[in-house]
């Protein structure tokens, strides 16, 4: 029944050990164990191992896990890399504003052929003019639309600049905090090395410094 001397199939032994398998197979194994001292010894050995396993217990820990509402959808915190690239979103927003403004301007395109030649008008003025049904000049000129667009773009740029400045300041602060934490850890570790004078601790410190120096 050992790995080198198998009288009974392993799966039958396992079934018998765990009280499973059909009655016929169980009876066969039982009869064999009664006749074969070697197999009986092996079986008793495996059974004894099983009984000893109950002393292997994981450490008691306070888990207390809880899912808070919407935790599954909570986005992960932004990494440093993401934060640096976030201004890109502002550029995209600015581009979208320009596209929208342009679209609004050409939405009311009006072309007129007359004695003055070809006259092309765009913007809200055309719509207003059409609504009034009069041949008066639009009160909102192209110049005004252009000014509005410029104002919008200017405001957007201003916001982007502010956002970039805020992000850079934040990154600078994070780097400074990390540096302070690393320095205090180094001081603490140096203290431990001085106290113990252990080569092992010195080696661990060197490893730590190596890791710190490779951090981005």
């Amino acid at each position: 029944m050992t790995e080198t001397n198998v009288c009974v199939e392993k799966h039958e032994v396992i079934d018998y050990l765990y009280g499973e398998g059909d009655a016929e197979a169980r009876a066969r194994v039982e009869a064999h164990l009664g006749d074969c001292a070697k197999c009986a010894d092996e079986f008793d050995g495996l059974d004894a191992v099983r009984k000893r396993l109950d002393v292997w217990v994981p450490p008691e820990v306070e888990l207390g896990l809880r899912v808070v509402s919407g935790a599954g959808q909570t986005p992960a915190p932004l990494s440093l890399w993401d934060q640096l690239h976030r201004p890109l979103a502002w550029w995209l927003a600015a581009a979208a504003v320009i596209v929208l403004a342009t679209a609004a301007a050409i939405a009311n395109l009006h072309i007129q052929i007359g004695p003055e030649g070809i006259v092309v008008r765009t913007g809200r003025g055309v719509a207003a003019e059409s609504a009034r049904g009069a041949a008066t000049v639009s009160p909102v000129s192209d110049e005004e639309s252009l000014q509005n667009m410029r104002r919008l773009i200017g405001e957007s740029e201003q916001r982007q600049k502010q956002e970039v400045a805020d992000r850079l300041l934040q990154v600078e602060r994070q780097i400074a905090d990390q540096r302070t934490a690393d320095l205090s850890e180094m001081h603490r570790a140096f203290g431990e090395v001085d106290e113990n004078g252990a080569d092992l601790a010195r080696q661990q410190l060197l490893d730590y410094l190596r890791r710190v120096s490779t951090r981005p």
Partner: protein
Amino acid sequence: MMLKMQNAVVGMQATDEELIALSTAGDTESFNTLVARWERPIYALAYRVLGREEDARDICQETFLRAFRGIKGFKGQAKFSSWLYRIALNLCRDWIRRERRSPKITTLDAETEAVQVDNRAESAELVAIRRDLGRLITLAMSTLSEEQRTTIVLKEYHGLTFQEISDLQGCPLSTVKTRLYQGLFSLRRQLRRSGVDGPANLVGESSTSLMARSSRKKVNLDR
């Protein structure tokens, strides 16, 4: 307040299936009841497979986070516990592959706390024997292959059927039984080398000799 307590009691009495139905409908508290019910077994599974407390805790947390995110996709084809075991074991496997290392043996001090004393009336010697035997079993388990260890853990500590283990590990029933046999056989050999053999009678095993053997084996097996 009273209503909340009543809900909590009702929640604890509800079956897994009832709680899953409520969770799927968006009731987070029902899911938390499931977490409270299963967090300990999942943690124990991860601890015994990985051998590291901190990592086992992380795996446990990640298991429930994934379960929460995927609860709507759980259609009840298997038991909820089997589903959780599958998630946890996949995470453990990923962890082992990522770290490219075998489960690490915890320090002796940590292991000392790992042995629970169920019976407060046990004599000091018996407690010491259990503790030392726990260390030896920890060491012996760490020498098994991941598959053998996981099979033994699922069968011995979680009471899964051979078929359930077969489904979880994606292997035939015969493979499960072979892993179990070989794992137990190997454990017996390791324990015998440590001087632990014969019928499982704790009183008959000397604490001091176990302790001495335990230290000796640690030098040999610790990685």
